[in-house]
């Protein structure tokens, strides 16, 4: 692994956060994960404002986005990112519990880069997270301006 891109995870459920981080840890992908707990916080992070005013510069290599979020929901976050010139290049992966077709259609219409339904089965879940992490944080060439760890 030459470089590891920073992963921004937007997830309100601490258990999902824990499971996801555990899955990523198994493959040493967890140390560059930033977790925000709602849509507003995610946007604050991306815009370097509020609690994140002092964060280091650069966009995440990938954003793992839950759809059902407090305050600003996932689709709204996606819409704002994809309509913002400074953020629109960030790859966004929707990671959700729902099979709802309308969410999927809405996400793709807003320009999502991938749409993943979290499997109930833990092994499948770990595999999905691992593959996502490896692909987006390692294999994929992140757009210019992304934070990468040598």
């Amino acid at each position, binding site marked *: 692994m030459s470089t590891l891109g920073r992963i921004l995870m937007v997830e309100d*459920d601490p*258990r*999902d956060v824990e*499971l996801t981080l*555990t899955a990523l840890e198994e493959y040493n992908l967890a140390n560059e994960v930033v977790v925000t707990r709602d849509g507003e916080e995610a946007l604050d992070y991306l815009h370097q404002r509020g609690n994140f005013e002092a964060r280091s510069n650069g966009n995440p290599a990938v954003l793992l986005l839950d*759809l*059902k979020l407090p305050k600003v929901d996932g689709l709204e976050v996606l819409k704002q990112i994809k309509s913002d010139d400074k953020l629109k290049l960030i790859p966004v992966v929707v990671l*959700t*519990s*729902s*099979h*709802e077709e309308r969410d999927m259609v809405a996400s793709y219409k807003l320009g999502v880069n991938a749409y993943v339904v*979290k*499997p*109930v*089965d*833990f*092994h499948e*879940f770990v595999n999905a997270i691992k593959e996502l992490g490896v692909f987006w944080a390692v294999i994929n060439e992140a757009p210019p301006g992304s934070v990468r760890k040598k």
Partner: protein
Amino acid sequence: MAEWKPGLPKPLSEIQGYLLAVFSVAVALGLALLVERLHFSGVQVPLFLFAVAITSWYASSGAAALALVLSCLSFDYFFVEPIHSLTMTRSDLPYFIAFASFSLLVSWFASVRRRVELELLQSRDELRNEVVERTQQASLLNLTHDTIFVRDMSDVITYWNRGAQEMYGWTAEEAIGKQAHELLHAIFPVPMDDIRAELLRSGRWDGEVEKTRADGTRVVVASRWSLRRDEHDRPAAILETNNDVTERKRREEEIRTLNEELGKRTTELEAINKELEAFAYSISHDLRAPLRHMVGFTELLQKSAASILNEKSQRYVGIILESAKKMGNLIDDLLAFSRIGRAETHKKLVSLDEIVQEALSEVRHETEGRDVVWKVAALPAWFGDGSMLRLALVNLMSNAAKFTRTRPKAEIEIGCMDQKPDQIVIFIRDNGVGFNMKYANKLFGVFQRLHPLESFEGTGIGLATVQRIVHRHGGRVWAEGLVDQGATFYFSLSKSKGA
């Protein structure tokens, strides 16, 4: 045209006229000779004049002329000197001329009278015919149940048919001669001046008018007016026909109210549907998340505590995981089931052959390693929602595959029967474990299962889903089976778009 009624003298024929001339002159001559024998004088001429007059009166002018000539000759022969000779003296000539002139005058009067009489008779007959014709027409108008009446230009009713009497309750005797607006208290949709202007311009007007019956009730009529003009092109009368549209108006109003209610109900249903959708959406998110956590953390527990868990505890952990997964499947199936109820059907002409093949490729992996013979008959193209029909077929074929698992050689047949222009029946027959017909009604209920889970897994939603899909295609679904002797599932599809 001439039509002679009994009681009137029949005109004499030409021959009868001449005979009358001869006869009347002969009678006059006889009488003249008689009075001469009785020594009366000066009566002969009036007698002959009388004969000529009678002939003129009853017969043609030719006969009258004959009577005149015969009278002159008879008078000359019998009464003018020299007697019994047709010669006459000059002094007698003015006498004859006066006689002839007088006779001609009488004849002329008679012929004028006859002509006048003839003309009178003719016009009487014409009048009578016209009266008959008009009476017939009027009685025809009376036959119709449509309301027809005529008013003159000062709004006085001049004709009133039976339909008018039926609608308004006034008899013709009561209505004719009355002012129409006083009788009917009409309320017009537009100002009267506009109606009159339209009537004079185009000769007609129509509109809905509210009027009052004799008993005081109101009636809404579709009113059509036609203007009649006299020979000088002046407006003479208005013919008005009315049809009762009160009932139609009431129905229109009823339909409008019903539509409004329907609209309200639709809005309500839409709201309920939205709620259901939100409910399903929430289940899809919120119910799966804790399940995922249960499975995830149990797995983590299993891993971290593997060394201290004995065999029994390991089994418990295994059961927790299995149950959670089962619940996950249940939630997924239920959500799919509810989605079918909510989703709009996109119906078009689809190839049932292709759909069966697609379903077969989905189901085939479930039967890997088994000896399964699929017999698929040719199926027609039909009107329906392709993805829904595929789901129904996958469920039915997957069921057939599942319940033939105990058979060394499974045979599953798919075909159609009872094909009609507007309906088709598809069947899926298997040689599996079958079922007791006693429970056939339970097959299609949600969570209904006829077999213990240990023998055949499943959530009990598959056939409920099939039923819902078939109902949305205006069809029905049913099954026949015998324990251990296979089962056949049938579903019908109707072709109507509305179903």
